[in-house]
């Protein structure tokens, strides 16, 4: 399939959903234009969540601004603070202890696990398969407890700081041991689930072909992250990040770009994350976790891209007497909105939310990037 076209251009009626809706969870508005219960066009209106984070960051001391980026989103929170610190670290040339880099990777991968599990659970819940959704949530709990153990909080861990990670997040022997054991538990649980999932022909037939996104179209819409890889394009920024140089993992792809590919994609990618965490536990270097030996100076715009659970995250700001100037953050969901609108075309109204969910939307981050002009 090259391109999806609406079945006809007749629009019989418009169905607005949101801003509060069970399948969406987040506040956003989606208008579905349907003909005979088939979506011909979808329009997603965001901005409901707009809090203006980039703007309130400007003028804050960079350390404070970094911890603010964490509150952009409660799912990729660690990714935001990681990338925000990375931006300044690159600009200021701060050297980061090896051990801190490993801990950042562990946190990053744990976050990927919990985000992917959330995706699986949310996907199952959206097709109204409560039982599977609960099973995934139970698995996810293992990850949440690990994150709480390391960061002291189940969400918003405040792990990265300029020069490394907070000593609170250092991993001693006992913690590493627990991490290791839980990875085994998680792998066993996930294997069970994935096998059960793939053998369930009712569920598979329910999600196959829904919300298809052809690779060509995905590239044209600048889709990023797992949603792109689920269309068959092997593009993962982790292969180019120096943090991941020591790690050996595969870039997973799936062929079809539909809901089934997306769900399997997340499940398979979780196995890779477990693999990375295991390597990190085995090889974690000794030493300090934070380097405080650096000087602050004014910089021009610094930029940093990293791969976060849901795609490519971009942060950029300049530093002026230790404060943030001109901050721009571009988040993965921002790039994927086009894909969400596109994926809905030609599917049943009941599947519309599923098609949106398949692109792993979360508008909290996205909403900071849209300028609202209010008169």
């Amino acid at each position, binding site marked *: 399939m090259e391109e999806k076209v609406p079945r006809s251009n007749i*629009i*019989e*009626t*418009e*169905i*607005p*959903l*949101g*801003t*509060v*809706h*069970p*399948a969406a969870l987040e506040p956003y*508005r989606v*208008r579905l*234009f349907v003909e005979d*219960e088939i979506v011909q*066009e979808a*329009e997603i*209106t965001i901005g*409901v969540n707009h809090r203006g984070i980039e703007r309130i960051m400007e003028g804050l001391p960079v350390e404070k601004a970094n911890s603010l980026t964490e509150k952009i989103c409660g799912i990729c929170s660690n990714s935001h603070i990681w990338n925000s610190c990375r931006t300044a670290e690159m600009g200021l040339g701060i050297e980061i202890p090896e051990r801190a880099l490993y801990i950042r990777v562990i946190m990053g991968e744990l976050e990927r696990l919990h985000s992917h599990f959330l995706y699986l659970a949310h996907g*199952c819940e*959206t*097709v*109204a*398969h*409560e*039982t599977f959704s*609960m*099973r995934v949530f*139970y698995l996810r709990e293992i990850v949440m407890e690990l994150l709480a153990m390391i960061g002291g909080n189940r969400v918003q861990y405040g792990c990265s700081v300029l020069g490394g990670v907070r000593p609170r997040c250092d991993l001693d022997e006992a913690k590493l041991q627990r991490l290791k054991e839980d990875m085994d538990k998680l792998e066993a649980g996930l294997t069970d689930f994935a096998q059960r999932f793939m053998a*369930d022909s*009712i*569920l598979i*037939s*329910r*999600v196959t072909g829904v919300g298809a996104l052809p690779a060509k179209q995905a590239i044209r819409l600048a889709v990023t992250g797992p949603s792109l890889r689920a269309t068959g394009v092997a593009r993962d920024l982790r292969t180019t990040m120096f943090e991941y140089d020591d790690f050996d993992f595969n870039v997973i792809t799936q062929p079809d770009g539909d809901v089934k590919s997306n769900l399997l994609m997340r499940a398979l990618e979780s196995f890779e994350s477990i693999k990375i965490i295991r390597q990190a536990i085995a090889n974690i270097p000794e030493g300090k976790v934070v380097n405080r030996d650096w000087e602050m100076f004014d910089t021009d715009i610094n930029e940093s891209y990293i791969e976060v659970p849901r795609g490519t995250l971009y942060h950029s700001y300049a530093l002026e007497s230790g404060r943030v100037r001109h901050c721009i953050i571009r988040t993965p969901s921002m790039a994927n909105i086009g894909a969400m609108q596109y994926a809905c075309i030609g599917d*049943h*109204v*009941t*599947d*519309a*939310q*599923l098609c949106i969910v398949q692109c792993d939307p979360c508008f909290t981050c996205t909403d900071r990037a849209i300028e609202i002009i209010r008169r």
Partner: protein
Amino acid sequence: MFETTVINSIIALIITVVVCFLISTLLPGIERKYVHARIQQRIGPPVTSPGIMAPIKFLFKENIEPSSPVPGLYKALPVICFFVVLSILIAITPYAFAIPALSSLVAIVGLLKVEEICYVLMGSLSKSIMSVRMPFPDRVKGAAHLNTTRSFIEDISAKRSLRMITYGSFPLYLALFAPVTAARSIFLNDIVSYQQAHGPFLFTVAGGIAAIVFFIGYMIILNEYPFSIIKAKCDVIEGPYMEYASKYRSIVFITRGFLMFTLGVLFSVLFIGIPPTVFSPTILLNIVVVLIFVLMMGIFSAFTPVFTNRQLLPTILASTLLGILAIVLGLL
């Protein structure tokens, strides 16, 4: 003499109905706690919560005027539904067998149709806050298609119920008529006495197939997953029931349990040949049948996603064909 029989029957009928009603309020709780929650490996709510306590709680809530073009009619609908279910139950008790007009399959099918039509009306009369009425500026400069007609989510649900009337409930009706092929009569009295003479219809080939079809029809008419498209959480939330509050919501809750019970009893009348009456130990058998149905429905719904038209049509088609097969086999 005749008069005392009538009075006795009426009293027996009332007692039977009340007992059935009381048991029926436990069914949603049994489904939720003992089937869903247990499969999902959790504790789940107390058995009484979903079916008894929730309706009682709603009785004591403020009676908000529903947002509907015809609030009076909208509020009357759940009451009608309740009486429809009640009439079905009365029709299948042995006391009603004396009134042929009521205790025939045609009457039961008619009553079930009324129930379904109520869903359509409910859907088209409910205008909840959750879609068009949500105060959100989405028709502004730059938005797509500014002049479309707008539908409430319940409108889609009404459309779906309409479809369900035309073909969705077909399997159930076919299954209802399968025993007729054996008993050669549409009157429950004859069906029951035929089975008492020749053994339950369930244990014939045609009966077995028809029972499967009946079960599928049972899930469809109860709108349970996977056939819950008229109240699918992923788009129409609760569909027809969106605007009911307080008393009316509690009737909606009660009716559901009652319908579960009544359909189970209907099965035991048509396929096993035991009409419900508290004055005979066979009522235990009725209850067992009801529980088995609830149990099976719970298991199926815990393991299936909601079906859209793509899966719904083949499923309904297949069960319709099965139903026809059962009838043909029965006629042979």
